[in-house]
């Protein structure tokens, strides 16, 4: 999968949830969306990008959501 496209998509998801004032709810929203709607190979590539490229291009919200909910996102991979 094209990692740059996944980074853009993840950032757009984050932009929606960033309206949420409670940061924990915001991060859960981002991670929950990735888990519920992204095929495992997309999540796998996003996590690889986070690990191997230090999340280059990802918004802090996405990085923090991955960090906070890594186990959830790994489920099914």
């Amino acid at each position, binding site marked *: 999968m094209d990692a740059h496209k996944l980074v853009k998509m993840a950032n757009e*998801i984050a932009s929606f949830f960033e309206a949420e004032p409670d940061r924990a709810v915001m991060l859960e929203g981002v991670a929950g*969306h990735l888990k519920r709607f992204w*095929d495992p190979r997309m999540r796998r590539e996003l996590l690889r990008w986070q690990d191997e490229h230090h999340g280059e291009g990802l918004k802090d919200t996405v990085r923090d959501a991955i960090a906070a909910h890594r186990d959830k996102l790994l489920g099914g991979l």
Partner: protein
Amino acid sequence: MYSVKEPDGGTPLRVSDQLVTITIDGAPVTVPAGTSVMRAAAEAGVHVPKLCATDTLEAFGSCRLCLVEIEGRRGYPASCTTPAEPGMKVRTQSDKLARLRRGSMELYVSDHPLDCLTCPANGNCELQEMAGAVGLREVRYGTQGKNHLDLAKDESNPYFIFDPAKCIACSRCVRACEEVQGTFALTLDGRGFDTQIAPGAGNFLESECVSCGACVQACPTATLMEKSIVDKGQPDHTVVTTCAYCGVGCSFRAEIKGAEVVRMVPNKDGHANHGHSCVKGRFAWGYASHPDRIKTPMIRTSIDDPWREVSWDEAIQYAASEIRRIQGAHGRGAVGAITSSRCSNEETYLVQKLVRAGFGNNNVDTCARVCHSPTGYGLKTTLGESAGTQDFDSVDHADVVVVIGANPTDAHPVFASRMKRRLREGARLIVFDPRAIDLARTPHVEATHLLQLRPGTNVALINAFTHTIVAEGLHKEDYVHARCEHAAYDKWKAFICDPRNSPEAMEEATGVPAAKVRAAARIYAGARNAAIYYGLGVTEHSQGTTMVIAIANLAMVTGNLGRPGVGVNPLRGQNNVQGSCDMGSFPHELPGYRHVSDPAVRALFSTHWGVPIEPEPGLRIPNMFDAAIDGSFRALYVQGEDIAQSDPNTEHVTRALRSMECIIVQDLFINETAKFAHVFFPGSSFLEKDGTFTNAERRISRVRKVMPPLAGLGDWEVTVALSNALGYPMHYDHPSQIMDEIAKLTPTFTGVTYDKIDRLGSIQWPCNDKAPEGTPVMHVDEFVRGKGRFVLTEYVPTDERTSWKYPLLLTTGRILSQYNVGAQTRRTRNVIWHSEDHIDLHPHDAEQRGIVDGDWVAVRSRAGETVLRACLTDRMQPGVVYTTFHHPESGANVVTTENSDWATNCPEYKVTAVQLVKVAAPSEWQRQFGDFSARQQELLPRT
């Protein structure tokens, strides 16, 4: 002319709590107050002669055939215009009445050609029938007097003739155009003997006529007559079925001669259309027998090879072996399928079942991905169900209608006529649209506010609109407290009231003056019943889902949900978008919108299907393309879709298609996607199979087989055969058994059976123990999810920005005469109205670029370039241009980008930054497209 032998009560049905009893020829009959004497008589089984009256139109009282005698009243009143009153004693037959009626008939017939035996209406002509009914035996005036018999026919319309020599000036056509269609294209020109029906100043084709067929249907003679009937004669039987075009889902009577359709007539009993139609459903069905139809299965190993015609068995075995080979080499997830909103519920259900149970993954998606997937997400999140809240009839109770990003007069014309009628009755209209759509100013209808926003700023505008209502205290706090989650509401209220969401703050982004937004919002909030109707101008944005959520928030905060006249109403593009989504076509949901991660739901399906269900979501269509390019996705079964034409960034899509090892296309024609295919399964049209479609109001209607499948198998039978060949047996003898399985596994469908649909005519889901005959209006006492949930909808501008290089914004859409990728309508005489796509632009933008109307213009975006002919129109605002995607060579989607909705990946078709440049030659893409298409044509078997 109406369908053969269709009952006609003469005047419209009235609904009233008060009942009136009268006697007709001595027999009592009880009818609702307001019912005409004519209709009351019809209810009593007495058919008063009539010519100018029909039950689809208000009474006119001109023909003088329906005269009756009423005890205690002087003269001979027209029964069509006389309301039934308590105790009224009516006589419909007497010597005097007979003489009066014959006298009228003599006058009509004295100026009417006596060519009944060769007339196309012979056998279905009301004038002929009335001559018999009144006992006409002579015409004392002769036939040699002054008459209209030499008037020339107007044959300009591709589907019907206008023969003024046969006109009796009853005005039914004029009134149908006004009352039913709302176009006002026809008029009675002249006075007295010179009175003639006139379609404006010219002929029908040049007039404002939209060819809906209402005038033809209303005509009691052969004056307005379908050319198909002129050519082929009257039908011998009818089958009631459902239109396969837009999401209105009109019921039609297919009139048939042998196994050939000779006419499609809208069904007066149809609950979605109530006897009305549009040019597509009424006339554009000829594609079903077009010579381009492929009737034999074909296979090839490479897209550079010639197609080889094979038996069904060989094609299916080959397809199955390729799927299994690819899964063996690249994993179970390397294959998937796309279901179609043009196919039936049963067919889409089977394809997703094939993927989940036969392929063993969740890589199934549907074309709703590129249209209404944000509707599913947004309405499920806020209200609890992925569907519109109302029935179409609900609009009759609306006092304010808000149309957002929809163009119903083109895309949902039959419902638009209904809406226009309500607007003519006085309901107010607010339109959110970058373009001045027809509905905003049409005869006797004008939007109170046309909020002509910049493309991509829907969320900014609706936030400002809703901010006005809440900040000014115009919302329904009591409703919210009773029906919605309090904590979420409090959080949302603080958000929406923030000054950053005010109309003044958003004006710079939207381009809509703040005062206008506030004025429109106050009208919406102040209405007794306010209804929102929206289309792809809402969903096809990077914030499509956010906008759907914002619409639901607005409806909740104003209490406009849960009763007739209100609601959130997505106007679905294709005939079965709602159904294809209901049937579990999305990769994350099983039928009934239940997530694959839910163990209980998976257990239900696993038990019934006998296989485990994957708990992780599969690939969506755009993800399939990306996965194809990276090599992890290699085979695709596409039923009834043309992704190579309809999906954005064509060059990316075709690169993905070329990357795959096996593409199986099931379609009526060699569409653009089939040019990249290795297996072709010839599809069956809606006339060739049984099944059901579900329209935009959740209405499940029957599709009934009118003729045998031209290729021998219905689409559902092919999916069953493929599944069997893959080693996952399916056992169905008829689509009704598939619906039985759907009902067994889907809580909103548990009460649905073919027998019940036949009995009720159609059913709106949910249909279950709580609502055994269906649910016209949802969320009545509580929301499906329990309490309504307000969700924050921050405006986030799209990444697609204008620049010095791409200074204009392109938005795409569709027009009345063509449908989606045009595969059907391009193969009908509808091309007379739209033979090519063009680029609409404002004269100011044209002048700046030295472009004049009709010039060839290159449309350049960051994704690609195509060349279209310019059409200058002040319907566009400066800075915004528009095109359609009905013709593949136009390449509209060569220009559109892969930007998509954050939640669903629904493409952002409505916002593409472009530049226009006058040119003299097609684009490089168009040249390559032409070469590739010609080569693919050569690879087809020669017939």
